[in-house]
């Protein structure tokens, strides 16, 4: 992951935002989607993605579903009701963070 320290704090929000847009997704799909959106700039590592998903699940923000696909079992994640509300809060928080950073890094633009 590029500058992983900077992205680290936003990983959960990124995951929740994607799930909010796409309904349900599985782990591999999420890493793939992030890569696609950021044109390969942001690469969520497997070692960070699954712990984040499992934590959100334990907190009751995500729900899981499984399905047999080809010859294996696939686990899908989706937002719970609480998760949906929390996504809105966290996105607002992230946007505020971006705005504040902008005014510090580039005061003229802000």
């Amino acid at each position, binding site marked *: 992951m590029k500058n992983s320290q900077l992205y680290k704090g936003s990983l959960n929000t990124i995951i929740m935002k994607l799930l909010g847009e796409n309904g349900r997704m*599985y*782990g*591999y*799909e999420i890493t793939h989607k992030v890569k696609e959106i950021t044109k390969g700039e942001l690469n969520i*590592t*497997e*070692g960070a993605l*699954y*712990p984040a998903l*499992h*934590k959100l*699940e*334990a*907190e*009751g923000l995500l729900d*899981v*579903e*499984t399905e*047999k*696909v*080809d*010859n*294996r*079992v*696939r*686990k899908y994640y989706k937002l719970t009701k609480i998760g949906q509300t929390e996504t809105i809060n966290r996105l607002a928080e992230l946007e505020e963070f971006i705005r504040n950073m902008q005014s510090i890094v580039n005061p003229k633009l802000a």
Partner: protein
Amino acid sequence: MMNLTEKHIEQLYDFTRKHFVEHYDLQTELVDHLANGIEAKWQENPKLTFEEILGLEFKKFGVFGFMDVVENRQMAMTKKYHKLVWKHFKEFFEVPKIIFTIFATVFLFIVLKNATLNDIVAVILVLFAAIFAFFEMIKNQLKMKSQIEENKKRWLFEEIISSYGNIMVMAAMPIQILIHFPKFAFINNYSLLILSFLIVSYYLVNYIILKIIPSKTEEYLRETYPEYEISK
């Protein structure tokens, strides 16, 4: 699209087991992840062997392999378990169960107030619950061990339920308190009431983790693992 065969999937399960992923739930998720990665890469480089691509995909997990994922999964599930215990505990403070809680606390208060050697009675009560829990835990450990030897599918949440999510570490705490401050709790009615409440709570937590939750294990596993039904 190059799809993996049944045999490849078996190989991937073996691979996760060899890399210290002991529980079926996490194995399944990682197998699907590796399989997706391998299929995509195979498309790009059809000349590489299955093992070579698997090696490349595994590298993406970093130097510690699946360790981070396993550890964090354990932590997340333990947290989920604690939340479950707390949920059941709170039920004892809602109607109708709160009537029982109040009754038990008052009853114990009266007993401790009037009993001769009441500090010993309190210690015995706590010790009794602690020893009972200890034996239950050993019984479960032995059962778990035989399950491992039989090579059955292991579910992390099931193991947390039968090892009581390490809450037992706290079992020694009330005993410690009573041993170090035996007279402290008997100074006045308030402190005695608090002691009675604490002992009742201690019994409630024991009852929840030793009886209530284990009796609903199947239900909780189904709730936690949608794949539980498919794989049985």
